[in-house]
């Protein structure tokens, strides 16, 4: 392996350029129109144009990506996450084109890609699963019978699903029919497959996942867990290692790790992968699904184990033996990651694409930033809103939380809205700090949240800057601004 094409964009493409360079390998970044001169493109050794901005016309086009690899003389492809990373046909096409696919075998991607198929494999491997159907529901009658047997509340899920699409909670039988219809049509739109199955709903579950790593010679280990319960719209926003729940149930990591390795082995898996579990309030865990790729939140595992996942992905793809034994893996200290999204949490997480005006990124002790942006970069509206991942490591969870808050206090990012301010509130929340969180945490936090008190000194500092002669309020790009103040002032005058 000498040159690797990165079939992705954004912060993960930057992560991969870095990992390749550190191994002495050349990198080829691909770019659509919207990603011309992106950070990854700038940092990579080579750059290949792959088409218009919509991902269906660029990042998802198998032939175009393979052509670019050929044109640049790449001998391997790393798919990152999202896009083609869990597309078995793409993995197979790479192999057929004589390219190394840096990931699991196409067969394992295909087998674990169907939620019901994965459930069957997990059950056969002896891993606990949430009670439910393994086959797609054929009709409402079958659905009613299955739900009745499981007992309400139940959860409808898309067989081909992910990211919360095609998912519906149902509390009563009378709601089942319409929920089934909605879930199925949403699944059809999202995945071109309307199949839906039903599971018992685990109440207030924690979302805990296990990182596995295996070579092509049958050796596989786990690197412990990541707690990913803090989610919005079924998307993770804060992840950490160790999971706070591990201090409550000391044997849980070993048990979940062993289960994860068994499932992955049963699927004929190699390279890096993640088994997602739900953990209930009694410390029981249930197999949920497998992500057959590098995970967004892999840095927290790297920080706590000291094991470089991208390095091992590359070595394993080249046929090397994984020289780490299970007993060599240790977990030191605590790492917390927050995903910096271009969105406005105050307006139901409305996306906020646009041009980055000012940017000063935090650093210093214990901080790792995986960022895909720069000042002057226009965050495209076509892709997901992840700008950067900010991680803090410290010897204790409390220390990591304080350090992450410190880093956010230094983080200057204007031009687009972000969730950085929300993170500071969460990191100061006693319930988050206690570690007693579930997937319901963030909605619950929003419900009881009180706005931060305005500090008159900060307002005065802002007012002084705004009062500077060269900074008089002026018309925005979108036309004359009608200010609330002017309105208030006029109202006063009319009295």
């Amino acid at each position, binding site marked *: 392996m000498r040159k690797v094409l990165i079939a992705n964009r954004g912060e993960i493409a930057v992560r991969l350029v870095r990992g390749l360079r550190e191994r002495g390998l050349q990198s080829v970044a691909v770019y659509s129109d919207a990603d011309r001169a992106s950070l990854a493109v700038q940092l990579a050794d080579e750059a290949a144009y792959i088409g218009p901005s919509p991902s269906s016309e660029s990042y998802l086009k198998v032939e175009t990506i393979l052509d670019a690899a050929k044109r640049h003389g790449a001998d391997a492809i790393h798919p990152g996450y999202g896009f083609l990373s869990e597309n078995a046909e793409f993995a197979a096409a790479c192999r057929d084109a004589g390219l190394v696919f840096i990931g699991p075998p196409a067969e394992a991607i295909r087998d674990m890609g169907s939620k019901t198929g994965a459930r069957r494999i997990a059950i056969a491997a002896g891993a606990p699963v949430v009670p439910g159907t393994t086959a797609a529901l054929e009709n409402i009658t079958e659905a009613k019978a299955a739900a009745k047997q499981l007992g309400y509340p139940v959860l409808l899920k898309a067989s081909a699903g992910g990211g919360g699409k095609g998912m519906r909670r149902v509390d009563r039988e009378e709601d089942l029919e319409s929920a089934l219809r909605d879930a199925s049509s949403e699944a059809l739109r999202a995945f071109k497959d309307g199949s839906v199955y039903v599971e018992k709903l685990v109440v207030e579950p924690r979302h805990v996942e296990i990182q596995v790593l295996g070579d092509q010679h049958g050796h596989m280990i786990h690197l412990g867990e990541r707690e990913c319960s803090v989610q919005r719209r079924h998307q993770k926003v804060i992840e950490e290692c160790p999971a706070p729940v591990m201090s409550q149930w000391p044997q849980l990591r070993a048990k979940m790790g062993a289960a994860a390795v068994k499932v992955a082995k049963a699927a004929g898996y190699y390279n890096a992968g993640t088994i997602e579990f739900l953990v209930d309030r009694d410390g029981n865990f249930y197999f949920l699904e497998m992500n057959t790729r590098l995970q967004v939140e892999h840095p927290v595992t790297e920080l706590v184990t000291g094991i470089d996942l991208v390095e091992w992905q590359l070595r394993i793809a080249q046929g090397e033996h994984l020289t780490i034994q299970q007993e060599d893996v240790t977990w030191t200290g605590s790492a917390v990651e927050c995903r910096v999204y271009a969105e406005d949490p105050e307006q139901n997480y409305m*996306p906020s*694409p646009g041009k980055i*005006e*000012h940017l000063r990124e935090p650093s210093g002790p214990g901080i790792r930033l995986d960022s895909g942006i720069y000042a002057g970069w226009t965050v495209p509206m076509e892709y*997901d809103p992840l700008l950067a991942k900010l991680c803090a490591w410290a010897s204790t969870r409390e220390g990591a939380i304080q350090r992450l808050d410190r880093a956010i206090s230094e983080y*200057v990012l204007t031009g687009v809205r972000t969730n950085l*301010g929300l993170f500071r509130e969460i990191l100061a929340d006693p319930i988050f700090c206690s570690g007693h969180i579930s997937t319901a945490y963030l909605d619950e936090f929003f419900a009881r949240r009180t706005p931060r008190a305005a500090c008159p000194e*900060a307002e005065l500092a802002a007012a002084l800057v705004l009062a500077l002669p060269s900074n008089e309020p002026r018309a925005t790009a*979108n036309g004359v601004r009608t200010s609330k*103040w002017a309105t208030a002032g006029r109202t006063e005058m009319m009295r």
Partner: protein
Amino acid sequence: MKREVLAHGQPGNLSIDGSSATYQRDEVTIAHDFEIQATEPGMYWVRLGNRSFQVMRSASGQVVVDGQRLDVEVYDPRNLRTSGRGASTHGRQEIAAPMPGKIVRVLVAVDDVVEEGQGVVVVEAMKMQNEMKSPKAGTVREVRTRADATVAAGEILLVIE
């Protein structure tokens, strides 16, 4: 120098005399000596008495103090009488795209009667669909967009009266 301030919707007063500033808002009045230094275009360091602040002012008027976004605006009272724009839109509500994106669906047509909070148009950006709601009850007067159109932030999509 005197300025009027609107901070988080509350009116206040700023008075600057040489290197001293007085700020009054609600029941609170604070006075400090200060210094300001521009560090980069749009970025400032402000010392207020003993305290140190980092202030960013973006081209769009957004202001961020020590990493926290503040909703603060400042006006010169002498300019107020002349800034009479906007009054003509009284009763008329323009619905603008809150972000660049693609129109997925327009849920209303001209002359439709809408409730306050009723969904009127669905915009997609960053793989997320966002339903825009009518800020008031009224009648749809204009529909200036259509499904699949690409829109810029601030572009007027509908007019409701």
